[in-house]
C-alpha cells in the first residue's frame, strides 16, 4: 500500500524525462538539439537538487563538478591522433591514455565524487552565506585552472573531436539514472536525516544526526551525478570546459529555484519549463514563427526572461512551482468522525 502510494513520486519525474526523450525522437534534427540539451540540463539540475534541495544549503560548487566530469570524459576519449594536434601541451599520461564511452562516463562520475568529497571534507562545516561564498571560490578555482592550464586540456579552446556518443538514448538513460539515484537517496534514512537537518537543525542534532556527515554524503553524491552529467554533456557537443562557469550556474540554479528546490519533481519540472522557454528565446534569435507571427529577438533575451522569472518566483512563491512537493495521486479523504481524535493525530 505504502509502496503503491509512493510510486508516483518516482514515476512522475521519470515519465517527464522519458516523454521529453520520446518527443525529441519524433522531431527534426534541428529541434532535437534542444531536447538533448534539456535532458543534459535535467541531469545537472538533479545533481544540484540532491545537495541544495535536501540540505537547504546554498552551493555554487556543483557546476565545477560538472566541469571536472566533462573534462575527465573529454580528455580520455579524444582520439590519440587528435590529441597531439588539438592539445599540444598535454601531459604524457593524459596523452597516452584513452577509454571508451561508458568507462569515460563512469570515470567522470568518479572524478566528480572524489572532487566533491575532497572539497566537502573541509567545507561542509559551513552553512548559509559562508557555504555559498566558499563553494563559489571552488567554482572560481576550477574555472581558472581549466581555462588556463594547457597541460591538462585545450584551455580556452573547445574540446574538439570528442566522440559525440550522446544521442537521445544516452541522454535519456542518463537523465533517468539521475532521477533514480536522487529518488533512491532521498528515500533512504540518510536522505531523510539530511532533510531533517534542513527542517530543524537543532532538533535533528538533538536526535543524534550529524549534520556534517549527512551533508558530506549528499555533497559527494551530488558531485558524482554532476560529474556524470558533465560526461554526458561533453559527449554531446564540443565544449569549452572552462566556460562552464557563471552562465551555467545561473541557468541551472534558476531552474531549480523556479521548479521548487524542495522536491525532485520540482527540479525536473523547473528544468523542462525553463529550458523550454530558454530554448524558445534562443531559437528566436534567428526568427521563429509563432501563430503566423515572425518573432526575432536579440541574443540575451533568453537570459533576461529567465532572470526575471527567477526573481518573480523568489518574491512571490519562494518554494517554486511545485511548492517543494512530490507528485501524488489525489486521495479520497476519510471523513473526520471524532473532532477531538483528529486534533490529537494532526
Amino acid at each position, binding site marked *: 500500500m505504502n509502496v503503491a502510494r509512493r510510486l508516483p513520486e518516482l514515476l512522475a519525474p521519470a515519465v517527464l524525462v522519458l516523454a521529453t526523450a520520446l518527443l525529441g525522437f519524433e522531431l527534426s534534427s534541428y529541434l532535437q538539439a534542444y531536447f538533448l540539451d534539456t535532458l543534459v540540463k535535467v541531469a545537472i539540475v538533479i545533481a544540484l537538487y540532491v545537495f541544495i534541495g535536501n540540505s537547504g544549503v546554498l552551493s555554487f560548487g556543483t557546476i565545477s563538478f560538472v566541469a571536472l566530469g566533462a573534462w575527465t570524459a573529454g580528455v580520455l576519449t579524444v582520439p590519440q591522433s587528435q590529441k597531439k594536434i588539438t592539445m599540444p601541451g598535454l601531459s604524457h599520461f593524459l596523452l597516452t591514455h584513452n577509454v571508451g564511452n561508458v568507462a569515460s562516463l563512469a570515470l567522470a562520475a568518479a572524478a566528480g565524487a572524489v572532487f566533491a568529497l575532497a572539497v566537502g571534507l*573541509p567545507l561542509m562545516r*559551513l552553512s*548559509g552565506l559562508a557555504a555559498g561564498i566558499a563553494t*563559489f571560490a571552488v567554482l572560481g578555482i576550477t574555472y581558472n585552472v581549466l581555462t588556463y592550464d594547457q597541460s591538462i586540456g585545450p584551455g580556452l579552446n573547445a574540446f574538439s573531436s570528442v566522440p559525440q556518443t550522446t544521442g537521445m538514448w544516452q541522454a535519456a538513460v542518463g537523465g533517468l539514472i539521475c532521477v533514480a539515484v536522487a529518488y533512491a537517496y532521498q528515500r533512504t534514512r540518510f536522505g531523510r536525516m539530511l532533510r531533517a537537518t534542513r527542517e530543524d537543525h537543532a532538533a535533528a542534532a538533538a536526535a543524534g544526526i550529524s549534520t556534517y556527515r549527512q551533508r558530506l554524503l549528499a555533497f559527494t553524491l551530488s558531485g558524482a551525478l554532476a560529474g556524470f552529467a558533465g560526461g554526458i554533456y561533453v559527449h554531446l557537443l564540443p565544449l569549452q570546459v572552462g566556460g562552464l562557469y557563471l552562465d551555467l550556474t545561473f541557468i541551472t540554479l534558476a531552474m531549480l529555484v523556479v521548479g521548487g528546490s524542495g522536491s525532485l519533481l520540482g527540479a525536473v519540472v523547473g528544468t523542462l519549463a525553463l529550458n523550454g522557454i530558454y530554448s524558445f528565446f534562443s531559437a528566436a534569435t534567428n526568427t521563429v514563427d509563432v501563430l503566423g507571427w515572425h518573432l526575432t529577438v*536579440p541574443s*540575451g533575451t533568453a537570459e533576461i526572461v529567465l532572470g526575471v522569472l*527567477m526573481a518573480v518566483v523568489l518574491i512571490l512563491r519562494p518554494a517554486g512551482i511545485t511548492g517543494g512537493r512530490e507528485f501524488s495521486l489525489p486521495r479520497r479523504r476519510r471523513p473526520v468522525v471524532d473532532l477531538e481524535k483528529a486534533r490529537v493525530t494532526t
Partner: protein
Amino acid sequence: MILAFLNLSWPVFADALALGGIYALMAVGIGLVFGVLRLVNFAYGQLMMAGAFALAYGDQWGLPNWLSILFCFGVVLALSVLLDHLVFRPLRTHSPAVMLVATFAVAFVLQNIALIAWGSFGKTAGSLAVLQAPWDIHGVEIRKIAIIAIVTAAGCLVLLQLLLTRTPVGLHMRAASMDFRTARMLGVRANRVIGGAVLISGLLAGVAAVMLSVEQPQITSTFALSDTVYVLMGVVLGGLNRPIPATLGGFSIGFAFGLLGGVLPSNQSQYLPSFIFAAVIVVLLVRPNGLFTRGGAAVERV
C-alpha cells in the same frame, strides 16, 4: 629599499594601491548594504556597469567631464533605488542565501540587457583617458589616475567614517547593522536607514565606476563583473559584518591583485584568482567571521 628587494617599482606599487582603493570603495558599498539588509549584492558590478555606460554616453554627446560624471552618478543612484524597491525590499525577510540568489538573477538580467543594447563590443568612454598620462614625481612616473584613485578612495573612506561615527544617520546605520530588530524598537526608521545605505552604496558604486572606467575605457556588458567577484571574496575575507574590516578585505584583494599582477610573469599571474579563491576558503574555515574582526564567533541560537 624593500621595494627594490621585492623587484618592485614605484609605478607598480602606486597602481596596486589604486586598485586596492577602488576595490575598497566597492567593498564598503557592498558591506554597508549587507549590514542593514543582510543582502550580498552580486549585482553591484552591474550598477557600476550602468554608470560606466552613462560615462560613455557623456563622452559621445560631448558633455563636459563634470557633467558626464554627474550623469553617471545619477544613473547608478536611480538604478540602485529602483532595484532596492523592486527586488531587495520584497525579499527583505528571506534568508541571506535566497537574497544572494536573487541578486545573482538581477545581475544576469542587467548584464544581458546591456548585451542587447550595446552588443558584445560595448561603447568607449574616452573622455577621461588623459588621466592615463603619467605625472613625474622626482623622476618616477606615476599615472595620474593612480594618484587620483588613491586620494579619492582615501577621501571617500574618511568621509564615510565621519558619517558613520559622527552623525545620527550613521549611528542609526551602525545600530541597524548590529541588531536590526532592536534598533527598530529603539526608534530607528528601518526604511530610512535602508534607503540611506542603498544611496551611499550607489554613490560609492558611481565613484568606483568612474575610476575603473579610466583603467578599462572599453565598456562592455561584463564591465566590473570579475572585479565584483573578487571584491565579494575580499569582503568575506575581511569580515562582512563591519564596514572597516570589509574595506580592509577589499583593499587587500585589490592591492594583492595589483602587486602580484605587476610582478609575476603572465604564465603565473593568470593563476592569481585561484590563489585568492583558495585564500578565501582557508579564511572561511579558520576564521569564519573574517580576518580583520575581533571577538568570538557568533553562536547559533535556537
